[in-house]
């Protein structure tokens, strides 16, 4: 057991299977404790965090926004999951000694150079587009990819296929095949 915790890499099949078990347990336990089934997801949290920030700077504007009213601005279960992903990854990388400070990833470097500013700008613009898309599609690879497809929902298959198609075409253009 201890070996597994300190091992830096697990087989993706094994780690994936554990996430499958986690997803089942999450739904079963939340149904018992919270009387509501909680399925893994992440992108709605970004809406809620933005809503919380907007409430600080432009309260009336945030409080009357139709989308914020629809998604309900609050600190909730999913926001804690997203925060937990940060903590869990930090713990795992420290235990496995795979924590590494990085400002520009290698594939990016080969195409766009060493500048952390250029990479930061790319990540920022990519972030804007992807979250806008995720909200339009109604979810991200966690909510649609994992949770919807587990339930064999048609929405999950359509969304995930489009995530991948859009991503493959863009990556091909952007990184020119990469190295």
């Amino acid at each position: 057991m201890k070996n597994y915790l300190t091992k830096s890499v697990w087989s993706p099949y094994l780690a994936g299977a554990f996430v499958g078990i986690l997803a089942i347990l999450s739904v079963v336990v939340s149904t018992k404790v919270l009387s509501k089934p909680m399925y893994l997801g992440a992108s709605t949290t970004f809406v809620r965090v933005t809503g919380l920030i907007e409430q600080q700077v432009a309260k009336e504007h945030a409080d009357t926004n139709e989308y914020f009213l629809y998604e309900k601005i609050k600190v909730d279960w999913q926001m804690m999951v997203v925060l937990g992903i940060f903590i869990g990854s930090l713990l795992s990388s420290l235990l496995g000694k795979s924590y590494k400070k990085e400002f520009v990833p290698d594939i990016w470097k080969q195409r766009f150079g060493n500048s952390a500013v250029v990479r930061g700008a790319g990540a920022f613009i990519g972030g804007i587009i992807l979250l806008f898309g995720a909200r339009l599609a109604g979810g991200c690879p966690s909510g649609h990819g994992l949770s919807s497809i587990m339930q064999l929902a048609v929405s999950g298959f359509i969304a995930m296929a489009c995530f991948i198609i859009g991503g493959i075409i863009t990556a091909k253009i952007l990184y020119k095949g990469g190295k």
Partner: protein
Amino acid sequence: MGLLLGIITGILFGFFLQKAQAIRFERQVGFLLLKDMTIIKFMLSAIMVGAVGIYLCKDLGIISFSIKATDVAAQIIGGLLFGIGWAIAGYCPGTSLGALGEGRIHALWAILGMLVGAGLYAEVYPALKSNVLAWGNLGKITVPDILKINHWVIIFIFIVAILMLFKFFQNKNI
């Protein structure tokens, strides 16, 4: 209680994501360049195990589903947009936080961008409601529903297909 459950679930999720290296920029973009199937092996393994467990618990009456409605236009347009941003950022919403956790500082810019993207969507949402979001609403449907085939048959076929895909990845060494 919900918050406590959420944080425990998230910590475990982040732990497994990091151990599989699924949150790395190289793995995410490596998949989109069709050179590295790590994240797909990870996702499909989770889906296989999850689908069996979720449907079993549903059949036993222990849990209920939470199905996202199928809105064809929104899912296609939003999905393609997501894909474009995903390839540029190299992260998705869940993995960005995990990447920051393992020291990938540049993920912070992606996270800030996502918050801006969420705000932008909130601004245009009222304008999209009567068009894009209203096109092709098919409701909360599942594959077994539309094919009118028992869900265990679908799950069995789905698992066989996934295992064949895994075999293909192993053969190709990707």
